[in-house]
């Protein structure tokens, strides 16, 4: 079985996120019969099947007809599996939206074609967040096409609007537009005959063409994140997660936070001694030539020839969940470490702030594009509430 593909569906409230996923679940027989019966019986749904209720299962969600928190459901088609992540479209639930999106490999943005709907505030916010989170591709599903008589003109109007908005925020992601109707099942899995003017593929087909297996990249630098250390029969074993690259025994490594050098002695993974551990693995290993006590949770281990930068300042882009004062003290959480920092806002462009950060301790920052994703962080305020999230730059 292939690795499951995680797809988050974002967009303004009521632009058909839950309905889209619900319809996919229904059309692929991924909903248990008991669930279909339950949805059929629910009060809000006397006439037709409300696909969104396969996902919206809280009382509050069903009675209010909205999504409160993110959820996930697996759609199976032939040998492929897609894990669809539904997120709320309301602005006040943005943290739930980001929680969902942060687990996705791909993003589908829904924009309703219905009269008076189109591109709205959360459509724009979600695009800006997708940019901040590093999305490389966006699949735009223009929904509710049945309500506008499958009008090509309406489709083009929204498409142009999205493209010009992306240019205005300097977002160069690859973008694909698919006109759909979840209610009628048009262009979700199969191409519909309702829109002969549309020459592209169905939504799932388009996504499928872009799925690549997460192959090991040869030139990725080694990065290990130390989660913990365990003493087993008197020996210290470091519990590490291999963020990128691969680890070999006898390899000379640099410990970037405690500023030490050492040699990998043994690798233990899956209760076996191994010579090698690969990206994504949660391996255990022992080190020689180091001072164990200095190694704390959040230590970064890299190969001598390709280390991250170690700095006490950085430039960053941040999305604040609430309004914060110009200068303030925060705790930055990055790669299992928490570091106190001062943040100074340089400029604010729409919802994203460009800032200078100075840290109380050194922090590892990546400069290679293949590992840039590791520069993301979350911010806590003094009361340890989550204040925002962002990405550091050199």
């Amino acid at each position, binding site marked *: 079985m292939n690795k499951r593909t995680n797809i988050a569906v974002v967009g303004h409230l009521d632009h058909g996120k839950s309905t889209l996923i619900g319809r996919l679940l229904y059309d692929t027989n991924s909903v248990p019969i008991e669930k279909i019966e339950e949805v059929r019986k629910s009060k809000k749904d006397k006439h037709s099947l409300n696909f969104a209720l396969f996902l919206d299962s809280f009382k509050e969600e069903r009675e209010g007809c909205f999504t409160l928190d993110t959820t996930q459901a697996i759609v199976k088609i032939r040998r492929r599996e897609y894990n669809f992540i539904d997120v709320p479209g309301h602005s006040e639930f943005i943290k739930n939206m980001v*929680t969902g999106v942060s687990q996705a490999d791909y993003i589908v943005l829904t924009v309703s074609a219905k009269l008076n709907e189109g591109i709205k505030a959360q459509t724009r916010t979600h695009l800006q967040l997708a940019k901040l989170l590093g999305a490389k591709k966006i699949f735009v599903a223009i929904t509710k096409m049945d309500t506008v008589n499958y009008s090509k003109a309406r489709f083009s109007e929204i498409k142009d609007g999205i493209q010009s908005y992306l240019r205005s925020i300097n977002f160069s992601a690859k973008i694909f537009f698919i006109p759909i109707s979840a209610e009628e099942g048009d262009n979700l899995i199969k191409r519909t005959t309702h829109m002969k003017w549309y020459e592209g593929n169905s939504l799932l087909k388009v996504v499928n063409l872009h799925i690549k297996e997460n192959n090991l990249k040869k030139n990725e630098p080694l990065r290990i994140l130390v989660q913990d250390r365990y003493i087993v029969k008197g020996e210290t074993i470091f519990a590490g997660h291999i963020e990128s690259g691969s680890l070999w025994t006898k390899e000379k490594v640099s410990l970037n936070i405690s500023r030490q050098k050492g040699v990998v002695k043994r690798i233990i993974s899956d209760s076996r001694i191994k010579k090698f551990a690969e990206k994504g693995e949660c391996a255990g290993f022992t080190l020689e030539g180091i001072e164990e006590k200095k190694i704390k949770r959040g230590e970064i281990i890299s190969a001598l020839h390709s280390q991250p930068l170690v700095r006490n300042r950085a430039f960053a882009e941040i999305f604040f969940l609430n309004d914060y004062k110009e200068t303030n003290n925060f705790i930055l959480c990055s790669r299992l470490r928490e570091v106190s920092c001062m943040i100074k806002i340089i400029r604010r462009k729409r919802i994203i702030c460009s800032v200078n950060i100075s840290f109380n301790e050194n922090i590892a920052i990546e400069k290679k594009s293949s590992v840039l994703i590791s520069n993301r962080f979350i911010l806590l305020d003094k009361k340890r509430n*989550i204040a925002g999230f962002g990405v550091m730059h050199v």
Partner: protein
Amino acid sequence: MNNLTVLERKSIFVIREAYAQFKNIGVLWSMGKDSTVLLWIIKKVFSGEIPFPVIHLDTGFKFPEMYKFRDKLAKKWKINLVVVRNEDAIKQEVSPVKNNRFLCCTKLKTEALRDYVEKHKFDALLLAIRRDEHSIRAKERYFSPRDKNFKWNYKNQSLEFWNFYKVSSMKGVHHHRVHPLLHWTELDVWQYIKQERIPVNPLYFSKKGQRFRSLGCMPCTVPIVSNASNIDKIIDELKGTSSSERGGRAQDKEKEYMMQKLRSLGYM
């Protein structure tokens, strides 16, 4: 790389995070397939041992095969097994027949757990719930805080980004529920059991045309019609089924919001 490897790695990461961030943790074991898989992965993380208590919430209504399976495996895996019972409620003969199912679950499971966690000051419990079991469980986080009344504040859940499984800063957090198998499906679990050769309760296998797909208490669990008498046959059966895993569990289907109500009070 196979799908199971990806799932297992994520679970290991979450278990390690919980162990690093909490001081006093335990794991709930119902002797069902999911929590047995969870114990198996925990054993992998800690070089073959489970370094914290394994808690069985015993209602007294479990199948005899489950008690037998429990004692056998506990011995084999050298588990620090703790059997937790609400003795007062058991003395009062609380039952789903005499009372109702909601009260029975609350007294014998939720309250038994509450007293035990309170007494031993656990700050985290590992549980083997999965998103695909129930659409309410699909809303869960990997690290999910509970207040002193064990309430799940589902209206204001903590933020969970990338691999940041942070101890919540929310006010009044009593303990955390940690869900390392949240992203697994029923089929994944069986495929993993096959791959790793994990022992499972014989009640899952078909006898006389019936088997249990999900195991709970005897009065509230019914078998399904099935000829799946071994793991391969179960995997084949699941690939073709369109009914729900917990279809045989009474507390899920009685009312639309039964699970939400139970869970908001601290049920698993």
